[in-house]
């Protein structure tokens, strides 16, 4: 910081930006991509909700306005987080982690139940979903712990890491919110990979996951609907019998079948914004949240979907870049954690809409309606920005 505070010698003084030096490394590309995705999301939330709102006699922009406000707040949060030196979070890692666990326990006790899961705090007309923030909390905690291990995780450290991740995983899984719990698992795997777990440990871990997965499927740990969701994409027939499926509306096969039809219906150029027969007529469920990608696919076609995917690719790539450029391993691991969080959510969410991933209720980052997810994602990106900005300091 001191270095850039000094006036540069000679003629180059005029070219010096007036901002403090770290802001020169503010990743405008990443921010621009995130803002574009957010704006994209607002339009799609509007398209997915206006007809239903109108039919219900409510202002058609109700959800659009709320989502736009979340976006603005999210941007502010992102910049604020970027302005703070990320290393401060390492110092506060224990506090942050503890606070997240406390929130998850609290929501378990006094939380608001909605759609069969107890995952929200209710504040007036707003709801807060602590599991979204727990993702960021876990990233910081894991990064801090693994960075301290200096690239060589002993068996004991590995056990600690597993416990650190396991506690929030179980709490979220019990809400039940299998999807968000799996995001934590993805973050753990990525941080372990980069954070220096030995190949042997990673192999053992992989074996453990397989054993647990098989056990879960065989011994009925999962609820029947969860199991159905997870396996439906494997068994889904090419030509779903929609008439049959509709009789058990809400059935997972129905969601996936309608979603696939919607996306396919878009073709290359799409049906046109607001003109999706599947999405605008609410044949696809949950489309302002979990199935928002189907609205993109149907209304904007391959062209719009590809643009959206490229924007996500850009965000992930810039995050990966930040991880590479980071000054210390804590910075690297934070970026890797955020990368894993976003990447897993994008792949799982879009993959589900396209019928190649099991159905799990995960929001599409910056696209799906929902304040907590938007804020948490922007906070994560703020961390990435902070790491990149401070790569020389």
């Amino acid at each position, binding site marked *: 910081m001191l270095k850039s505070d000094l006036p540069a010698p000679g003629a180059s003084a005029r070219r010096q930006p007036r901002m403090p030096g770290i802001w020169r490394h503010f990743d405008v590309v990443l921010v621009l991509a995130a803002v574009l995705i957010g704006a994209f999301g607002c339009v799609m939330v509007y398209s997915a909700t206006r007809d239903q709102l109108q039919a219900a006699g409510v202002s058609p922009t109700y959800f659009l306005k709320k989502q736009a406000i979340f976006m603005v707040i999210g941007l502010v949060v992102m910049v604020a987080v970027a302005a703070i030196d990320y290393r401060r979070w390492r110092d506060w890692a224990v506090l942050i982690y503890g606070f997240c666990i406390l929130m998850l326990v609290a929501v378990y006790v006094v939380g608001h139940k909605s759609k069969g899961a107890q995952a929200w705090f209710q504040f007036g007309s707003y709801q807060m979903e602590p599991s979204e923030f727990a993702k960021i909390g876990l990233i910081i905690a894991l990064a801090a712990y693994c960075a301290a291990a200096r*690239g060589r995780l002993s068996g004991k450290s590995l056990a600690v890491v597993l416990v650190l991740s396991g506690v929030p995983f179980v709490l979220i899984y019990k809400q039940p919110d299998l999807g968000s719990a799996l995001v934590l698992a993805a973050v753990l795997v990525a941080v372990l990979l980069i954070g220096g777990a030995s190949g042997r440990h990673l192999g053992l871990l992989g074996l453990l996951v397989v054993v647990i997965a098989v056990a879960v499927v065989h011994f009925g740990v999962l609820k029947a609907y969860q199991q159905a969701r997870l396996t439906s994409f494997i068994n889904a027939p090419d030509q779903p019998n929609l008439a049959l499926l509709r009789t058990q509306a809400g059935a997972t096969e129905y969601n996936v079948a309608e979603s696939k039809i919607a996306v396919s219906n878009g*073709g290359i150029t799409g049906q046109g914004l607001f003109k999706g*027969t599947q999405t605008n007529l609410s044949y696809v469920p949950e489309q302002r949240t979990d199935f928002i990608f189907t609205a993109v*696919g149907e209304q904007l076609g*391959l062209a719009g*979907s*590809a643009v959206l995917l490229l924007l996500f690719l850009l965000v992930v790539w810039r995050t990966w870049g930040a991880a590479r450029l980071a000054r210390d391993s804590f910075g*690297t691991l934070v970026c890797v954690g955020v990368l894993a969080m976003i990447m897993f959510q*994008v*792949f799982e969410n879009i993959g589900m809409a396209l019928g190649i991933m099991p159905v799990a209720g995960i929001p599409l980052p910056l696209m799906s309606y929902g304040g907590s997810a938007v804020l948490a994602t922007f906070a994560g990106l703020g961390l990435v920005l902070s790491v990149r900005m401070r790569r020389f300091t």
Partner: protein
Amino acid sequence: MTGPEQPSLRLRLAILIVVVACLFGALFARLWFLQVINAPKAQAVAADNGVRLIYVQAPRGRILDRNGNVLVGNVNEPVIEVDRQQATQAPDMVARLAPLLGMTDKQLRQAINNLQYSPYAPVPVMPDATPQQILYIQENQDLFPGVRATSMSVRTYSPMGKAAANIVGYVGQINSAELAKLKGQGYQAGDQIGLAGIEATYEKYLRGSPGVERVQVDSSGRVLDTLGTTQPSPGHDLKLTIDGNLQVVAQQALAQGLAAARHTFDTVTRRDFQAPAGSAVVEDPNTGQILALATDPTYDPEQFVGGISDANYKNLLNNPSDPLLDRSIQGQYAPGSTFKLVTGTAGLKYGLITPYSIFDDTGRLQIGTFPAHNDNFEAYGPIDLAQAITVSSDLYFNSVGLKLWYGRNQYGDEALQNVAREYGFGSPSGLALPNEAPGKVPTPASYLKDHQQHPNIFTESQWYPGNSDQLAIGQDELLVTPLQLANAYATFANGGTRYVPQLVQDAQTAAGQVTTAFAPKPVTNIGLQPEWRSALLAGFEGVVNNPKGTAYNVFAGTPLAGVGIAGKTGTAQVNAPRQATSVFTSFAPVSHPQYVVDAFMEDSGYGSAVAAPVVREIYDALFHFPPQPVSYTSGGSGGQN
């Protein structure tokens, strides 16, 4: 890990970005598959997903008589309809509407959710609503969102139409079996469809084509938009060959005749005639057009309007007099002496008799060990063919039947039966009404076959001379329908052309523009030689106009005696305890026959006693004479069968 430059870290970060690339690659590939390769198939599914068709039934065509009188029309009946979608959103409305209609909440909700109606069209919950109910809803429309007081087109029957119930039939709601069969023609659950009579056989013309409204709906079935509407095109009116006035007369004459017979004592069975049912047919012999087709007892087709109640339907089905049976085409009777037309024709055809050959009727004819005789043991002496018909000598025709059988090596086993078939007996005439009975012409082969199939019912497997003897005078197992007999005499009357009896002249628009005309359909010419015909004709003329004729008493002294009616009585013996079937068939005027009229009266005695007076009353109407009510003409002297 001391810094990002550490090779192991760089490798691991590289692995990470490769994984990222693979994941994005998978998403792109899948998008390509769905949106490029799979798109055409999915677009078809999606297009179908959000569109529903609502069918609107077209007004049904009317049924008119030959003079344009309405037999069956339509009337708009007040009805209260409820929009299902709005009803689910307004429970208050249901709570208010139920007491107004005299229903409980539950009943009304069941009516609203009647699955027979399309979920996108209003559901009629109260057919036949009272004016007060209609008015209340219209005046307080704001209390009843989604409720419509409107009218529904239903069938209505004129008095002529009611007299023709057996012809026009009735409509009812389509059942699931028919629906499955007719789905391709746009039938929907809840649609009306012809179930009997002309309503059933000419459904195609009467129905018209339903209107179709294409609406866009969302996943919960809410109608969002109307994409297109095809107006229903009304069904065509059908103009029948039936004369409505004549149909009423025939119906009344039957009822009078049956009532008269029921008050007459039968000296054979020593009780009053039972006279449970009768039927009459009037046909134009030159075209095969049916002018009247009456059956009694009958039913009131009005009962079927808006769906017949279970109790009413059970009453009709379980009624021992079977009012749903159209005896003119479904009643099967021995024709008795009216069959002598066939035996006479066969005798002439095979050269067993000539118009002039004389038969000495001694009153006795030995058939093997069985002595045959005439009614009342009459002996008519030397008679020719015409006289044999006029006085109805059984022995004359018995002998023809026997000679045909004894000469079967020359004429074939079924010589007499073949002539009967040429006249149209033994198979349905082809009249356009459902379930016409075929009748039965017994043969040696049918005896054997029946016995093999049902040995307990048909105890005899062999054909004996006695069977030929009985068949020749219209007995044995011979069965004909009143329509078949009329059509046989029409064939004779017009000189030998047998037509398919015709019921519908044309289909026309409501404005009277003919769209389809139905022509008379000749089936065959039976090759009736003019000299055969005139000999037989003289016999039939004598039946009515010769004092020795079996029906002379019925027409003598009435204005009809001058029109030139020819006819034949029949008194068909039926197994005890049933009484003889009274049969009379006729045509007029003799010189150029315009009408064939016959009547069959069950358990009513001699042909001249009831059937002939019924026919007489029909002729009164045909020739515009004041009607002579049917009275029982008690047996005169001499054979009357």
